[in-house]
């Protein structure tokens, strides 16, 4: 991969909480148009990795570059290029759906908010909910509002943490289409999920981490042919179980 095309560059990332090492010397690159699945058992360090990537948590050591800007030394430029959709939709309880979008547009300098907002609300089946407060929305709808806010400024980097939680079947299908479409449009997308069939279906590459360390990285075909995993089988689930069992 050419350096100029790398959108997410993580080198030797380590994150500790006291004596506990949540992420341990993790390095990977993500280019434009890639949809990378970040998978691992509970407590593997997925969420910590994503939170370091978006600047919510400071890395203990290592470097993170988003669209050629360090998230530590140049956070404003780096954050301008990314969107983070957390597993638990985090909304301001006192702002309506439309006010969330307007606030996001102002923060990210989005010029034509009304047209974009209407398009996104339609895409995410939120039309008619513009003037509702989060307390009046179901969990799935809140998730969609958070995603709409994330997509509003057409970010070059998108990080999804369990994006399908709380969505109905139609919402799940729409969400998968949305993620794939953004990847095809050139965004670098990372999806952290326990739903291996989702990762298998929409991701072009998979990173498996366990105990904070990267234990596998590649396309599904590459993983299948990795000598250590060649006996695992054809599905991502079998590969994942073999890789994490071997690591344990």
């Amino acid at each position: 991969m050419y350096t100029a095309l790398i959108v997410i560059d993580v080198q030797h990332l380590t994150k500790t909480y006291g004596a506990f090492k949540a992420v341990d010397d993790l390095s990977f690159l993500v280019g434009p148009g890639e949809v990378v699945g970040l998978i691992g058992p509970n407590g593997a360090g997925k969420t910590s990795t994503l939170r370091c990537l978006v600047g919510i948590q400071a890395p203990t050591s290592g470097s993170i570059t988003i669209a050629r800007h360090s998230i530590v030394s140049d956070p404003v430029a780096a954050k301008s290029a990314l969107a983070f959709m957390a597993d638990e939709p985090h909304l301001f309880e006192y702002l309506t759906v439309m006010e969330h979008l307007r606030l996001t547009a102002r923060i990210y300098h989005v010029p034509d908010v009304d047209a974009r907002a209407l398009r996104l609300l339609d895409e995410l089946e939120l039309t008619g909910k513009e003037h509702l407060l989060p307390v009046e929305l179901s969990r799935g709808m809140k998730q969609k509002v958070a995603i709409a806010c994330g997509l509003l400024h057409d970010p070059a980097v998108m990080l999804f943490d369990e994006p399908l939680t709380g969505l109905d079947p139609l919402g799940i299908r729409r969400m998968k289409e949305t993620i794939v479409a953004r990847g095809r449009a050139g965004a670098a997308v990372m999806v952290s999920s326990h739903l291996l069939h989702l990762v298998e279906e929409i991701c072009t590459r998979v990173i498996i981490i366990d105990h904070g360390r990267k234990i596998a990285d590649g396309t599904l075909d590459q993983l299948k042919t990795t000598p250590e995993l060649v006996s695992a089988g054809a599905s991502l689930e079998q590969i994942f179980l073999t890789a994490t069992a071997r690591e344990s």
Partner: protein
Amino acid sequence: MLGTFAYLTWCSFKNRVRRRVQRLREPRYLVGLVVGAIYFYFALLRPRAVSRRGRGIPGFGSAAGAVQSVASVVLFAIAALAWVWPGAGKPITFSRAEVQFLFTAPVTRRQLLHYRLIRSQLSMLLSSALITMVARPSTLANSWMSVAGLWLVFMTVRLHLIGVALSRTSLAQHGRSGVWRQWLPLAVVFGAVGVLVETAIQGWPDLVSAPDVRTAFLELQRLCSTGPAGVVLWPFHTLAALPLAQSPDQFASALPWVLLLIGLNYVWVLRSDAAFEEASAEHAERRGLETASATAVPRRSASAPFRLGLIGPPETAILWKNLILLGRYVSARTLLRLLPLVVALGLASQASGHVGLAVAVGGMCIWLGLMLMLMGPQMMRNDLRHDLANLALIKTWPVSGAAIVRGEVLAPAIVMSSVIWLLIVLGALLGQPLLARMGEPPTALEVLGYALSAAILAPPVVLSQTVVLNGIAVLFPAWSSVGTSRARGIDAMGQRLLMMAGLLVTLAISLVPGAAVAAAAMFAAYWMTGMVILVVPAVLFALVVLAECWMATELLGRVLDRTDVNAIEPVE
């Protein structure tokens, strides 16, 4: 089933205590506990040691009659207001876990009510003990009578308020027929209020013309214990007699009547036909959401204060957001509820014969303005102190920490300053005669000068406090309360005392440069013109303080950029 409820109550209490003890391993809670305990000793326990040497405040004995009369009126007011007070009509409170486990279990409505009553006993008992400690009765016998008496009073009030809440629920559920179903309690309340209003009107001239406070209290005692008012207030008088009893005999003679009152209220509650389960479950869900988001659930949708443009500094966007926050939690109705209090105080001032109503209101505006300037920023928290709960979201924004801090402090400073300006205008227009009492009557120009100076001083004073308070939240996020929740316990109280001390010291230091520049300017102006000029020094003071605030936000912003969201701990 009662045993199960008692077990659940005991386990909850035991685990809460254990958790609070466990958190003392963290230095901030341990330091807080030490400070809180020292405060507790000096504020509550030390006066008792002094009084034993005969230098303390006398006990209830000498004023028991007057206290009993006032207490009976207060208890009556609580009982009557519960029928109209918005908060008193809320359903019987259960937690989300209680709804999950008890509402779905084979538990009857009566058993649920029993559980709620059992659950509240421990806190009532602890409150009774605390009040007794504060009131420091002179003997051990008086102490236990006070604790037991207060406990029974709280129990009666609690039962009565549940009864009122159920009756109000029934009225809401059944419409007109609800009035018929609740005719007896409604008739009793309306009748009692009518009797007391009539007595108050009749006795008012004698009360206000009393030569001293003692005579006024004696007159109040007479009004409360004789005639129809005496009959209406008798249950409340009897209730108040229990914790104020001076001997076991007095206690024993009041006890059967109080137990009868408890029994009557208990029967009333059990006989209520109101279905409270659904409303309670909804209420529990709402409280659960508040706990999860560490903020209260906004009650209504108010329009935004202005249309947010798409181009401009991020500070304006955060200001816009925080003004919406204020609008959705504080309604005009909330403020209007204060109006009767202001008018009542004004009328009381007028009735005392010292000043007219307008002047009294003007004086109150000046006083309120001063209080808001000094205390307001601690109460209005629609800034980073509230947004710490949203820090995980805010930190993903491409906005510098300094811009976030500036944007966050703007909303409370602007709102508070606007209210203070309004109060200054009202105070200047209505309260002029008060200034005249302090010496020579001021000219209109002098009044304008005072008002203008105060108006110039208010925003920087408010802003500097807001910056300091937000600075504490940024520098010591683990010590700050997230959202609208507050940690409880002596250790948490100690933490708050330390924070308050830190605030006062920092504030004093931050205002010194501005005050020094203003004083120098005032002295120079006086030296040159022979006149005391206030406006120019006020402007200089404001400029210096605003510059300090700007620098402080730059520094705090750098800290906020490095702040880890894990440092923000949700309160229990």
